[in-house]
């Protein structure tokens, strides 16, 4: 399989697995078999595929795992909300790295700036409107 064909499918699978972990109420986490059982049957996924996906997510530090006998139990590294918050912090935080890593439409604004921006908009409307 070419990387282009597999990459989006793998992304979908990782998201589906994370959804499973987020939805789980089990404080001890889920085993590979439990995650597999929760995924839609029509995907016809192999046990090893789900194991690989969980392994990849662990490497990305999106899930944590603990040994349970001979198997692993997996937990999400954060709730959906906390990971969203981390993403937003990386995006909105005012660090030099952020400025270069992502390209924003708007580079933040302070309440004090807003009056000036409204005046600037009025100028644009008057000259180019």
């Amino acid at each position, binding site marked *: 399989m070419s990387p282009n064909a597999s990459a989006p499918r793998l992304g979908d699978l990782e998201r589906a697995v994370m959804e499973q972990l987020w939805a789980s109420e089990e404080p001890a986490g889920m085993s590979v078999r439990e995650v597999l059982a929760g995924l839609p049957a029509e995907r016809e996924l192999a046990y090893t595929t789900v194991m690989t996906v969980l392994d990849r997510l662990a490497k990305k530090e999106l899930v944590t795992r603990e040994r349970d006998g001979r198997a692993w139990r997996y937990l999400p590294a954060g709730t*959906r909300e906390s990971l969203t918050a981390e993403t937003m912090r990386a995006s909105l*935080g005012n660090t030099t790295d952020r*400025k270069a890593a992502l390209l*924003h*439409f708007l580079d933040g604004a302070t309440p004090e*700036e*807003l009056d*000036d921006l*409204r005046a600037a908009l009025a100028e*644009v409307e008057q000259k180019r409107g």
Partner: protein
Amino acid sequence: MYAVLLALLALLLAGVAPRVMARLGSFRRAPRAALVAWQAVSLAAVLSALFAGPAAVASISDGTHGWFACTGEDGCAATIWWLENRRWVVLLIAGSVTLFVLGRLLLSGHRIGTRLRSARARHRELLDVLTAPEHAGRADGIRVLDHSTPTAYCLPGRRSRVVLTEGALAALPQAELDAVLAHERAHLRGRHDLLLEYFTVLHHSVPEPVRSPAALREVRLLVEALADRAAVRASGPVTTARALLTLAQGQAPEASLGAAGDGTTAVRMRLLAAEPMPSIVTLGMYLYAGAVLALPLALLWLAWR
């Protein structure tokens, strides 16, 4: 002689020219030409610094024409040993200057490149488990984060992403949204990330007293102004300006979280109202870029002629 000129040129182009150009507000009305000029000046500064060494070597490579030319019969015989040693000193200094400049560039490039790529990789991993390529009937590949603060950005790179928040989708009417998306896609299409990375690397490889933070800020502003032109083509200047205000209003309450920008939004909005640069001036800017870039090449050629 030419080595000294090249060294002076390097200082002039790295230390003085950026400070002057950062003050030329009218450059912003022709962001593409201005960015070409900025690239030419910075590249010429690098070339001058790198060429100074080889030019110094050229000045001593020919004993009869260089600095240490033999004039008298007796003097020559007596000073040959001394001259040979002088050559080694010049070669050593010239070589270390070139290697030092090259080393700083490579080190700064490596550090910044590694940091950027790992920050982007982490961000992409988070985005890819939090958002799907299709969202609520949209199939344009835009990622929508479930967050109420309106913001829009793109994650550049080989697997680039345009990202909006639910807050941005709620705040922006369709025409303003089109302006925002055109702006972000212009960043990705033009590989503005590489341009900014290039300037950031150069900025950090210039010694502290010489480097100009104003220059880096100006280049960032020019890149935004360039992407704004794509937004204007998609939605017109007034709608683009409104989109800026809409997102600024949504983000202002977040200023306490450190979301405060560098105050360039008003500048960008006023640029939307500005008349375009006369084409003769734009042409002049391109000529300036070409001339600046030709200088170090000409000096090196003269040194080795």
